């Protein structure tokens, strides 16, 4: 009887295994009918999110060579080359550079820069043949990246945060469709209208 039980259990296991494979097949079969979520990269690009931390932008003229960026950087990465101008009694910046082969894009330097001469751009295509090419000097840091939405060669694709509620597929959205939630300016307008209404009501009650 023990043998029969073993045989029965084995058969049950086999049937269960077959059932699970069938369920798995149903899942993959279901996936076949779905639209690809591919972004066809060189032709289509995702619009980076608002606070995307891409390559750092640097404005030479604003920099006061205080070296706060170097101090807040986890690895003291920015290289600030300055000399003291004795006549003006001011630091004079000669050269500034950040090596993006080493940078982790934490944004601390941007956060702490007292004159806002550092900022984050949405540029993320930093590939180079030689990693020394990633050491950006003050001129390279001063270049602004081209916006994805303004590039005529590229179809900008909105990422998930920019899509209306319940939509996950940016490709065939109708024109003018907005992201989930309301724009801040709409909320502000509404608030102001409410405020005006309240003021009017109070003015009316005072009159009566």
């Amino acid at each position, binding site marked *: 009887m023990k043998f029969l039980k073993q045989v029965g259990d084995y058969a049950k296991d086999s049937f269960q295994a077959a059932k699970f494979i069938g369920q798995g097949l149903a899942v*993959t079969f279901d*996936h076949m009918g779905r639209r690809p*979520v591919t972004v066809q990269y060189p032709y289509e690009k995702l619009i980076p999110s608002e606070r995307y931390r891409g390559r750092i932008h640097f404005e030479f003229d604003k920099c006061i060579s205080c070296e706060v960026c170097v101090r807040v950087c986890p690895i003291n990465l920015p290289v600030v080359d300055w000399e003291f101008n004795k006549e003006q009694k001011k630091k004079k910046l000669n050269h500034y550079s950040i090596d993006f082969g080493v940078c982790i894009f934490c944004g601390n330097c941007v956060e702490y820069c007292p004159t806002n001469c550092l900022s984050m751009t949405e540029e993320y295509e930093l590939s180079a043949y030689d990693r020394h090419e990633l050491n950006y000097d003050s001129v390279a840091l001063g270049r602004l990246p081209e916006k994805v939405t303004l590039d005529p060669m590229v179809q900008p694709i909105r990422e998930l945060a920019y899509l209306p509620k319940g939509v996950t597929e940016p490709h065939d959205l109708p024109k003018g469709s907005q992201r989930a939630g309301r724009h801040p300016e709409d909320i502000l307008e509404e608030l102001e209208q409410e405020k005006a209404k309240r003021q009017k009501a109070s003015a009316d009650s005072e009159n009566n």
Partner: protein
Amino acid sequence: MESGIDLQGSVIEILGGFGIPAGLAKVIWMPVPMLLMLVAATVGVLVSVWLERKISAAAQQRVGPEFAGPLGTLQPVADGLKLLFKEDIIPTRADPWLFTLGPAIVVIPVFLSYLIVPFGQNLVITDLSIGAFLWIALSSITPIGLLMSGYSSNNKYALIGGLRAAAQSISYEIPLALSVLAIVLMSNSLSTIDIVNQQADYGILSWNLWRQPVGFVIFWVAALAETERLPFDLPEAEEELVAGYQTEYTGMKFALFYLGSYVNLVLSALFVSIFYLGGWTLPIPVETLTQWLGVNEFSPAVQVITGSLGITMVLLKTYLFVFLAILLRWTTPRVRIDQLLDLGWKFLLPVSLANLLITAALKLAFPVAFGG
């Protein structure tokens, strides 16, 4: 009843009209179907490679190849061309003869097996009376080639991969042969033509699938293992071995392995459709259809239509199984080598033996339904 188109007969007749003797006409005719079969097998491979890439892309919500030709249909051709122009490397201190012969020994039997694949009553290269046996015999040559190429590569990964491939092929050869034997027992013939004809009487109802459900599943599982498709692609397991017995192969020799595996997949699917799904027969028998439509079954036009319908049926059934294999590839995880051998020896072998014995018993008990 001798139905279907006899192309060989008519070509010999036409050539005879030009004053060419029958023997010579036959010699002229002979290479045509062979070449046609070679081309058909290769095109079948290109189609299944394209299908594999497109279906796997769809299953993963990707796009898949789309730039080479319309919908990426030329992608397999591009792949082949790329492999053709790659440098052919033989590793140092490898055995050059075995290394070169290996892929050929893997591929040639697979192509030879197309000898007995029927696409219609007379659309077969040779109607051998030992057809099914020939296929079993040919497919057991493959492990030798795998072992040879693994052994001669002068590489430990290749050696282990070759050994694993041979072990797998041999373990799954037996349940495969046993389930074919059950079919043969019911059809009273080893000829693929007879096996199909025996399933032709009542359309879809008389297909072997209903009488051999267990054998069908075993055959398909064993065929997947034979062709090294995904739940059983242990010989080339990328994570454990680098790429199995083909680690050291480049260029055309690698392409031969690749081609061989896909030809083998299409071939196995063809055999599933021939052994279990009634080959070129329609789900509703042609005779019934012609009766309904009120046309003469033997008129030339109807013959051509039914002939091409038959080819379509074979391809449809075959590619259904190719599709299933691709879907399985993206569904099931790879088994471990001990699980693989357990499944082969402890499950499929006894079950297929029992299936064979039960088929024999049923054949004795109900000779009407089981081909007594």
